[in-house]
Structure formats: C-alpha cells, structure tokens
C-alpha cells in the first residue's frame, strides 16, 4: 500500500527526494556566498584572524579547523568548528597579562 502510494508520488512530500531538494540546497549555498560578498582572499584572512584570537586563549588543533557558511531558518551563519586541547600552558593568564 505505502509502496504503491509512493510510486504514484502521493507519499513523497514536496521538496524532498526529487530534484527540488537539490535546487533548494544549491540555492542556499549560492545565496550564502552571494550575500556575504567577500572574496576568497578576504574569507581566508577572516578565518586566520579568528583563529589568532582563539589561539591566544586555548591550544587549537589547526589542521582540523573547519569554517562553513550555513543557512538555518532565516539566518545566514558563519559556522566555525575549532577543536582545541586544554594543554595550552598559561592560557588562562593571557587575558590578564595583556589586559
């Protein structure tokens, strides 16, 4: 029964599974890049500067860092995944020393 309905296209929800889903996904990707309107060089510089700041406080595993643009609900997001290890010596003092 479910199989039959599915084959008739009655169970498949609009926008899922078919090419519309990839249209939506591709549009989100393209629009994020259109909207942020930064050159690859500028994006790269931004990433480096963000990492510099984080590295002042914690030890960052820089080879596993990942930056991505994402669309969630109505928001355009810059999502940074920055794995860190606790072993940074004296990390807690940095802020106090410089500030």
């Amino acid at each position, binding site marked *: 029964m479910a199989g039959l309905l599915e084959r008739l*296209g009655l169970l498949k929800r609009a926008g899922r599974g078919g090419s519309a889903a990839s*249209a939506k996904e591709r549009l989100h990707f393209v629009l994020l890049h259109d909207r942020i309107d930064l050159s690859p060089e500028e994006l790269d510089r931004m990433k480096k500067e963000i990492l510099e700041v984080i590295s002042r406080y914690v030890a960052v595993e820089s080879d596993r860092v990942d930056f991505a643009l994402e669309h969630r609900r109505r928001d355009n997001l810059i999502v940074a995944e920055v794995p860190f290890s606790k072993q940074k010596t004296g990390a807690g003092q940095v802020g106090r020393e410089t500030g």
Partner: protein
Amino acid sequence: MGGKIVTITSGKGGVGKTTATANIGVALAQLGKRVVLIDADIGLRNLDVVMGLENRIVYNLVDVAEGRCKLRQAMIKHKLLPDLHLIPASQTRDKSAVSQSDMIQVSDWLRPEVDFVLIDSPAGIERGFRNAIAPADEVLIVTNPEVSAVRDADRIIGLLEAAGKGPGKLVLNRIRQDMVQKGEMLSADDVTDILAIKMIGIVPEDQFVVPASNKGVPVVLNEESRAGLAYHNIARRLNGENVPFLPLEEEDGFLRKLTRLFSGGNQLLKQG
C-alpha cells in the same frame, strides 16, 4: 496624494515581467482603476505587442523625456478599457536616453491623474533597472521556481534594500503543481523560505498564456485561464484587498483524480 507607482522587475530576463505588467494592468483597469503602463525597456520594447497596441504608437517615453511631445500624446488608450493607457518605450534608442529624474518627472505628472502607474523594468541591474525603480512606491519582483531566477531575485532584493525601495513583493510565475508534488520543482514555500520576502502572487503555468501573447490579448481577459485568475488576484491585492491564494491543483489533473480516489477510501482503491 494620488496614484501609486509600482515597478515590476526581476533581474533575470524571460521570467514573465512584461506579461505580468500587462496582465496586472488590465486587471486593475477591470477593477475600475485608472492605470498607465510604462515600458521602461528602452531599445527592446515589448509591452506594446503583449498589449496588442503596437500599431497605434506615434510618440514614446523618450519623446516625452526630450520634450518632443506632451505626456498625453504618448499615452495610447487600450481598445477595450478606456481607463488603461500605455506609454511605449523607444525602439531605436538605448537606456541612456532616459534618466532617473525623467522617470520621476513622468511619474509625478501622472500621479494626480491615475490610480496606478505600472513600470515594466528591463532585465538586469544596470541603468535601465535603476531608472525603473527610481520613482517606485512599491516594487514587484517576478521570478520562476528555478535556481537561476531565484538567485537573481535575491540579488534584486539586496539592491532594492540598498536603494531604500525594499524589500518588495514576490510574483512567483510559471509554477507547475504536478511537478511540485513530485518534488521536481521548488514550491512557493521553498521560494519564500529562501528569499524571505512576502509573496503577492503565485501564477501557475498555463496553456492560455502563449496564445494570449500571440494575439496581443492579455490572458487575464480569458476567464478560463488560471494564470489569468492569478493575475486578477494580484491586482486585487495591490489594490489593498485581502485575497486568499489559489489552490494550485489542476482541476482535472491526473494527480487530483488519484487523490480523490484514495480519499474515497479502501473500497474505491480495490476497484482501481
């Protein structure tokens, strides 16, 4: 106060701007409104042929801008609707023949005389587009449920906001509900979700649209046409009415019949 200036634009060409302008204009005139349509696509005029008024042109928008004729002389009266006029574009000049202040001047002249001025913008984001939106009180963005058209609409929305004319309202044209249902076409919800602006109309793909443009009789004059009905509803919404959106299913489409069959219960199912 006077009339409202509404610019119809899209970014991408070929999505149905001119057809939308013609049909919304005719529908507003049918509602008893005084309407002037301006073709702002200088050098590539088309609104005259879509309206079936191409053989009545004497003067055009550039003649008005350059003072060769009075505004009235460039206004062509529609054959069936005496309160509907067209100011055609020049076919022999280019976008530089008209400036933003020309467009604002013409709109200011028309404002006290009419209820609506609809400006058909050229495709693109350059001078012609800037001219077309300069006098606008409201902007409609026409798009199709396709990646390239939606992307260009997003760009236009950004430019409108930057120009203080945003965000505009969306006309989603050429939607096919059968394909949406199969997941093979972006739905109206998908497009509003992506563009995050208000929808003013959803126009289904319709077999009557091409014959209408062949004849120069806007499809809104064909009572059988669902696209025509959709344009009629857009006109009513522009006019401030609260009109619910059309159910998009094809009345006698295959899928609709099947849905009806299944909702009829198991007995019918066994027969089918």
